[in-house]
């Protein structure tokens, strides 16, 4: 594996191997050892063209715990605001000798463009491209689900997962649907008709416009953030209306199965898609998702930056 651009690029077995690696890393770094020497001397660049708190901090922590050198790049305050192109920015990073580039970009396909352009020789990790994909988020969500529903299982057959909310703008939903399906889970996407993408039938998952219909049947309820910044038209009348139909409030929380967990990729709009009480309830695994994110990203960096493709060339790369 050279790049991680899309969940489509990895097999179920490769995904499980990343989750297994993350589980061992958790066991390895839970005691006195916080830092491993594995990527000493390698450089990981966080190339963020869009705002991010969790993902950037998480990749930063993951790379540092493996002893890699980390360079953080935010488009704001860089030459990108002077009009520098992705190509020129990438070539600058190449000249500095980046081994991995973690890229978040507002344009769908930006990570793939960077990987296939030949501008850089580094491994590319997609940390969110437009409304397309966010593969490490899907992996950390799968890791979190696995910890709650059998930490050594090699598939998710029999698990019922609901993904609720702003599906149309959500790269998290796309990556999660791909991965959960690959692992055999039974996935339903639930949203108002305006927030369900055209051609949802081709995703190969059930969809529903009614959150209340089958709420008792789900093992995992994944709430998505309503992405107001990507909405330039009215997708729903107002926030209260949305909340009433698709928000996870206390009443709906009370109807969930006893063992069901509530997930949210963050940042949460408290009071819109999820009530404060639901977000802070014992069923909520939101903070676990954040801790697990570091482990899963360590596992991804380990798998991409070790192995035969990564043999040192001897010269200045």
């Amino acid at each position: 594996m050279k790049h991680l651009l899309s969940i489509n690029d990895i097999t179920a077995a490769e995904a499980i191997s990343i989750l297994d690696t993350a589980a061992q890393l958790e066991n390895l770094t839970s005691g006195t050892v916080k830092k491993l020497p594995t990527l000493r001397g390698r450089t990981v660049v966080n190339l963020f063209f869009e705002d991010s708190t969790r993902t950037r901090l998480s990749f930063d922590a993951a790379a540092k715990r493996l002893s890699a050198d980390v360079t953080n790049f935010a488009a704001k305050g860089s030459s990108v605001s002077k009009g520098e192109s992705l190509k020129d920015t990438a070539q600058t990073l190449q000249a500095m000798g980046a081994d991995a580039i973690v890229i978040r970009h507002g344009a769908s396909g930006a990570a793939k463009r960077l990987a296939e352009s030949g501008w850089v020789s580094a491994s590319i990790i997609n940390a969110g491209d437009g409304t397309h994909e966010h593969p490490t988020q899907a992996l950390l969500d799968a890791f979190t689900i696995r910890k709650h529903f059998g930490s050594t299982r090699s598939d998710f057959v029999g698990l019922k997962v609901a993904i609720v909310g702003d599906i149309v703008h959500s790269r998290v939903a796309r990556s999660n649907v791909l991965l959960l399906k690959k692992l055999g889970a039974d996935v339903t996407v639930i949203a108002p008709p305006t927030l369900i993408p055209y051609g949802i039938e081709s995703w190969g998952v059930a969809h529903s416009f009614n959150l209340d219909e089958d709420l008792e049947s789900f093992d995992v309820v994944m709430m998505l953030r309503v992405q107001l910044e990507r909405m330039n038209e009215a997708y729903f009348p107002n926030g209260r209306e949305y909340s009433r139909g698709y928000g996870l409030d206390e009443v709906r929380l009370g109807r969930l199965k006893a063992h069901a967990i509530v997930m949210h990729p963050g940042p949460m709009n408290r009071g819109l898609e999820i009530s404060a009480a639901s977000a802070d309830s014992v069923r909520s695994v939101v903070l676990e998702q954040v801790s697990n994110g570091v482990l899963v990203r360590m596992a991804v960096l380990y798998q991409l930056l070790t192995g035969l493709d990564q043999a040192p060339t001897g010269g200045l790369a």
Partner: protein
Amino acid sequence: MSLVLDSGEITRALKRISHEIVEHNHGTDSVVLMGIPTRGSFLAARIASIIASIESPLEHGYLDITMHRDDLRLRPPRPLAETVMPPSGIEGKHVVLIDDVLFSGRTIRAALDALGELGRPQSVQLAVLVDRGHRELPIRADYVGKNIPTSIKETVKVSLAEIDDKDCVEITGGEQ
């Protein structure tokens, strides 16, 4: 393929190593065994139970050293195995590292680094079932089941009943 150790010989070698560990350390006080996965872990468990039967019980654990290897860029990514610390840790203990085959010595170098992250043992000793030579680092074993002179082209394959359904040590691939 040629058989170098059969099941009985492996058991006798492990018994002798167990006695040597107890003798060298004047008993089992503050001695802990750390097996290096995969097969070193099973050997550590076996030696621990032999020592419990001939002297007194002692603690053992498992130490995965993958993240400390220096050849990670020369081989496909390896899956990680479980690291289990002995209940009372390794601080101030006499740690006996246990592995199946001693070859280049690079695994043991990585194990010494990994141990250093976990604490400061009083001493570190090394027990191996097979020493096949061809060291690339100044490392030697304190306890050896059998010295087997090999050609660099040959492969030493250790099978243990716990995962391979049989106990034996074989050499393959010398002819090419």
